[in-house]
């Protein structure tokens, strides 16, 4: 354990990381609402594996890892968006892409001669080791996703609920589905940097799933979900700083605990008249 003064010093060092995690927590909670509505949890996992491959490739080539992660993410998101318009096609495409991406990533890491800490970080998170310049990029992307989501919110909700009626009423459903996949790809790429490819669902799925146990209000669900994402991401870092354990397990555990509580509370809300 460390004393309080040391903790504050550490805190000062990772300020930027905490800011990045906070923004991601909010964006992850928000986009998670649509991930749930569009039944895309599996897609999140699939995209994250290709994002990992992209990041590992970038590491091997000695270029910006966050950019590599973005490229992998966007390629996966576009493939899933273009080929997987229908849910059944989508799942098989993701099932095919995912092991390929993970395999590619493992290959790149095996070829990478550098420190093993970097390798492990891509799978399980490394936010505190992300450099300042990259943190700026991550925050910038998160804000972009946040703003874009708010702009497409209504048509995207319509399309998620009832794509045929939405199309008939003038919603550009195909373009919207692709835009959503790109936004999801961006959010996943940022998450991979923060908590690692294997754990992105803790920020992109769990908070929204928890919020949906508590409410069906189109206003309250996104707000709760963003709050849960924020608490998980920032809380995880703050707790991890006090010890020597990695950050990710704290984020995933807080996120999971919130979900469990939401389930129990939600049950009582539902039973009540």
């Amino acid at each position, binding site marked *: 354990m460390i004393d309080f003064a040391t903790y504050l010093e550490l805190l000062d060092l990772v300020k930027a990381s905490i800011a990045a995690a906070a923004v991601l927590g909010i964006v992850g909670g928000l986009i998670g609402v649509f991930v749930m509505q569009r039944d895309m949890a599996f897609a999140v996992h699939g995209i994250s594996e290709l994002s990992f491959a992209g990041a590992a490739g970038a590491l091997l080539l000695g270029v910006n890892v966050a950019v590599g992660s973005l490229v992998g993410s966007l390629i996966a998101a576009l493939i899933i968006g273009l080929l997987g318009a229908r849910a059944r096609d989508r799942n098989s495409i993701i099932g095919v892409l995912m092991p390929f991406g993970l395999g590619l990533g493992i290959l790149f890491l095996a070829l990478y001669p550098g420190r093993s800490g970097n390798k492990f970080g891509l799978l399980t998170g490394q936010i505190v080791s992300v450099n300042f310049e990259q943190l700026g990029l991550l925050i910038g992307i998160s804000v972009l996703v946040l703003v874009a989501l708010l702009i497409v919110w209504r*048509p995207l909700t319509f399309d998620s609920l009832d794509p045929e009626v939405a199309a008939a009423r003038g919603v550009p459903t195909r373009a919207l589905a692709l835009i959503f996949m790109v936004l999801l790809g961006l959010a996943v790429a940022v998450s991979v940097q923060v908590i690692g490819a294997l754990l992105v669902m803790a920020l992109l799925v769990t908070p929204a799933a928890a*919020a*949906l146990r508590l409410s069906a209000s189109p206003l309250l669900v996104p707000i709760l979900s963003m709050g849960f994402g924020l608490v998980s991401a920032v809380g995880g870092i703050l707790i991890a700083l006090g010890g020597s354990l990695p950050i990710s397990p704290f984020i995933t555990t807080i996120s999971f605990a919130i979900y469990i509580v939401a389930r129990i509370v939600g049950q009582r809300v539902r039973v009540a008249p």
Partner: protein
Amino acid sequence: MIPALTVRNGTLSFADRTLWSDLDLEVAPGEFLAVLGSNGSGKTSLLRAILGQVPLDAGTIEVHGQPVHRGNRRIGIIPQQRLIMAGTPLRGRDLVTLGVNGHRFGLPITPKTDRDRVDALLASVGATGYADRPLGQLSGGEQQRLRVAQALADDPILLLCDEPLASLDLAHQSAVAELIDTRRREHDTAVIFVTHDINPILGTVDRILYLAEGRFTIGTPDEVLRSEVLSGLYGAPVEVIRSRGRIFVAGIPDAAHHEGEVA
């Protein structure tokens, strides 16, 4: 008076199969047209052509005297009832709100005028009482009432109904059918109603368009729902049975599941 829908010499094929050809159809304002036929006979494709989503292979199609185009806000659409995904954070009124402003991009804030419009629409279908309940907790009949309200958001001149009564119980079937009928009588809205089962709307329908085997026939229910007419259409013996005010069609070729079902 400008017809709500005009199809002239319309031909539509899917892959290399002709769904229907040389279709001439005029639907007057306030008219209730039912579209019947087996699965794959081109019923839904007709709706998609009216919505401007699939082009005709030949002929012209106009809504209210204008060539069809995508996203025509004066067409209301009532789809089949379906299961709402568990993770849908919407209440009854939100379904109706989507009809009013669901196509608009921009910050998702619904202004007072839109909210008033939603309240009026909810009241017009008698859904005010459950407007604030989660969509996933509503019965099929309650959902369909909300979908009617959603379809009326822009005061449509043409209502397209795609099996809106399917999987509803009899009481809800007649309640929803009556809502649609009232709307067209009070506002002269033309209704095109695709259905497997003519019985819930038998007393309402003005004319029937019956599609089968790449052919079609149009007329009043009494003209179309006759053994010799449908046998001619299918090119095989088909029997129309009338029993206690209900109509059953038996012996439709290539569609075993239609046995016992209606029309």
